[in-house]
């Protein structure tokens, strides 16, 4: 694992951390939001916050794809999964998300044919192998996973596989960031931009953040050193009075993104007029649906789904966590009624959810007594 280990070096981390601390003005507080759930996971898993000076606070944003799917859509998924002719395929995390009446895992235990897959192409293979069944794939995720769904769709069309369809819940990151920026609750000083999403969309779509909101953004990779370096870039911009789009993840992300992936998405999907996000509510033009000419592969067209908007459980504050308004531990049910083994909200289900990451990895942080200052 040489490639990974290079980005986890404790020695290098210490040096970057010193540079960051050197840029922090005493008495000034810095609040940076990481938009991507992968970042949240890395931050807690490797203890990145332990290396930051107390002036810097990392706020977790709405970038966990499992977390932002509203309860009503989960109910719709379960309704499809319960149809006797259907093999319902999904990423593992979605199986544990609680809906109004239990999770997909519960539906499976009651007899629904729910299968975990690692890629939509696996779902397509299941369709090929089971011509007498209807295979549905629960497509979720940001621009990171959308291209693989698009490619699967194109392949299904090319091969004429019609016992396959998609329940499309793909969302787009830019409207969510804009919604966060327009929310009055938060005073952010910069963004750690999502690395994987940016491999697809490039760095240009973030320009409005510096232009319209005068904030810096550093698109960053997912190794702990990437994130630390992203924070350094933000601190340097602030120290120099700049607010620009910078690219820490240049080994993967290009300014123009991935034109092939964007083309596959454009060929198969189009923007919905509006889509509900957990916590953020309805955001216009923030999600994708299949193009009309691909309706044969659209589970929403093929099946009669409830399509009802369902409010989150009263106690659940996933919405405020997703917006970064409260820390996971500030939620009323965090860690007591809502735990990873019995989650109430989505943020406690996905390993990229802020609550699960804090519960599983970070919850000692609040108790640690700071090291006494060394006396020279």
């Amino acid at each position, binding site marked *: 694992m040489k490639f990974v280990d290079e980005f986890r070096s404790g020695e290098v981390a210490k040096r970057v951390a010193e540079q960051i601390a050197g840029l922090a003005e005493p008495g000034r507080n810095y609040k940076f939001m990481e938009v991507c759930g992968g970042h949240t996971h890395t931050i807690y898993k490797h203890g990145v916050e332990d290396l930051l000076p107390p002036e810097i606070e990392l706020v977790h944003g709405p970038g966990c794809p499992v977390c932002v799917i509203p309860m009503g859509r989960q109910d719709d998924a379960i309704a499809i999964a319960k149809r006797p002719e259907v093999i319902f395929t999904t990423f593992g995390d979605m199986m544990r998300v609680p809906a109004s009446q239990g999770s997909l*895992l519960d539906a499976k*235990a009651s007899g629904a044919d729910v299968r975990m897959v690692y890629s939509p192409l696996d779902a397509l293979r299941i369709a090929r192998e089971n011509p007498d069944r209807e295979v549905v794939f629960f497509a979720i995720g940001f621009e990171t996973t959308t291209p693989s769904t698009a490619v699967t769709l194109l392949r299904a069309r090319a091969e004429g596989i019609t016992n396959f369809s998609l329940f499309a819940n793909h969302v787009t990151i830019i409207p969510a960031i804009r919604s966060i920026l327009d929310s009055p609750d938060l005073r952010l000083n910069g963004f750690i931009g999502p690395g994987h999403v940016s491999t697809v969309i490039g760095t240009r779509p973030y320009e409005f953040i510096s232009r319209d909101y005068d904030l810096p953004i550093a698109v960053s990779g997912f190794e702990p050193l990437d994130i630390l370096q992203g924070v350094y870039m933000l601190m340097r911009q602030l120290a120099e009075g700049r607010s620009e789009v910078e690219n820490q993840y240049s080994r993967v992300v290009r300014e123009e993104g991935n034109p092939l992936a964007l083309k596959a998405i454009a060929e198969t999907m189009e923007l919905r007029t509006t889509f509900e996000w957990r916590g953020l509510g309805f955001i216009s033009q923030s999600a994708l649906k299949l193009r009309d000419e691909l309706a044969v592969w659209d589970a929403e067209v093929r099946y009669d789904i409830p399509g009802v908007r369902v409010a989150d459980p009263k106690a659940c504050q996933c919405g405020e966590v997703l917006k970064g308004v409260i820390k996971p531990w500030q939620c009323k049910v965090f860690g007591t009624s809502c735990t990873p083994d019995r989650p109430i909200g989505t943020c406690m289900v996905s390993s990229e959810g802020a609550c699960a990451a804090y519960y599983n990895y970070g919850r000692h942080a609040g108790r640690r007594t700071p090291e006494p200052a060394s006396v020279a």
Partner: protein
Amino acid sequence: MSRSEEDVLDAIERRRRRPHVKLMDQQITLAHGAGGKSSHTLIEMVFRRAFTNPALDALGDSALLQVEGTAPRLAFTTDASVVKPRFFPGGDIGELAVNGTVNDLAMAGARPLWLSASFILEEGLATAELERIAQSMAGAAARAGVAIVTGDTKVVERGKADGLYITTAGVGVHERDIVLAPEQVRSGDKVIVSGTLGDHGMAIMVARGELELETDLRSDTASVNELTAALLDATDEVRWLRDPTRGGLATVLAELALATELAVDLDEAALPIRPEVHGACEILGIDPLYVANEGKLVAVVGPAGVEAALAALRGHPLGGDAAVVGELREDPTAPGMVLLNTAFGGNRVVDMLAGDPLPRIC
């Protein structure tokens, strides 16, 4: 009145220690078999409640029993194998069934002697396959020095079992003057693992063929009774032993931390993990600390015995990669918690497995 972070963390710790009061789930899900929190609740609320007795309530890998007026004590345990696929690189379901029971006896400090084997066979299973599995069980039993002395066979209709399921039970004798239990563990004791972590779980994941990964990963399934005997012969400083199967190293240490109210400090850089296991875990987003092992042991050893323990383990073919990976320590800010010092320079909590990333691995 808002709660402080400290209050919230205290509430979580209280909840972790609270005895289970009822099983909330309406039906069994795969999570109940994963060896994590759901499995624990199920065992507590259904089985222990129904069967409670002193031997069971100790909840060791084996029950320790003594017929009145006789010595030595007996160790008794049982283990079911439902692994899918039945054959995988490094072993098969038969070998796993024998090694699992032998290892549970060894972890109690006992010398395994006799095994039973019950087979649930599915109509349509090829007899050649059954013969192959029986042969591999015989081989594993011979290597472990145990005899399979009794058994049972049932056949169910096609579609009612995945080829076959095997349940073994085992009896061993506990001849050593040693108590292995959380109560023996002291602050300052070291945590030793006998070799690389996560080999079995990741080998099974890859063997399922769902990932389209090409690796040389092999299950580590093996009987560790000889290795355990070498360790116990080398030092009397061993306080506690477990085989980190389902739920991995993280889960057994989380249990130990709660039972001792000590903090377990793990050192990420010291964990022996094969590069290919590390790589497969990275790709799948799985933490190797939670991945099952089937031929490893975790020992807590007093500081005076660490050198002898390591030498004994490393002197055995199954213990070449043995390493000290952590320490138990009194820490008022983290009683009953496992903490990992990351190689990156940070620190995090390691809790019991919740949910089920890897079903049917043993």
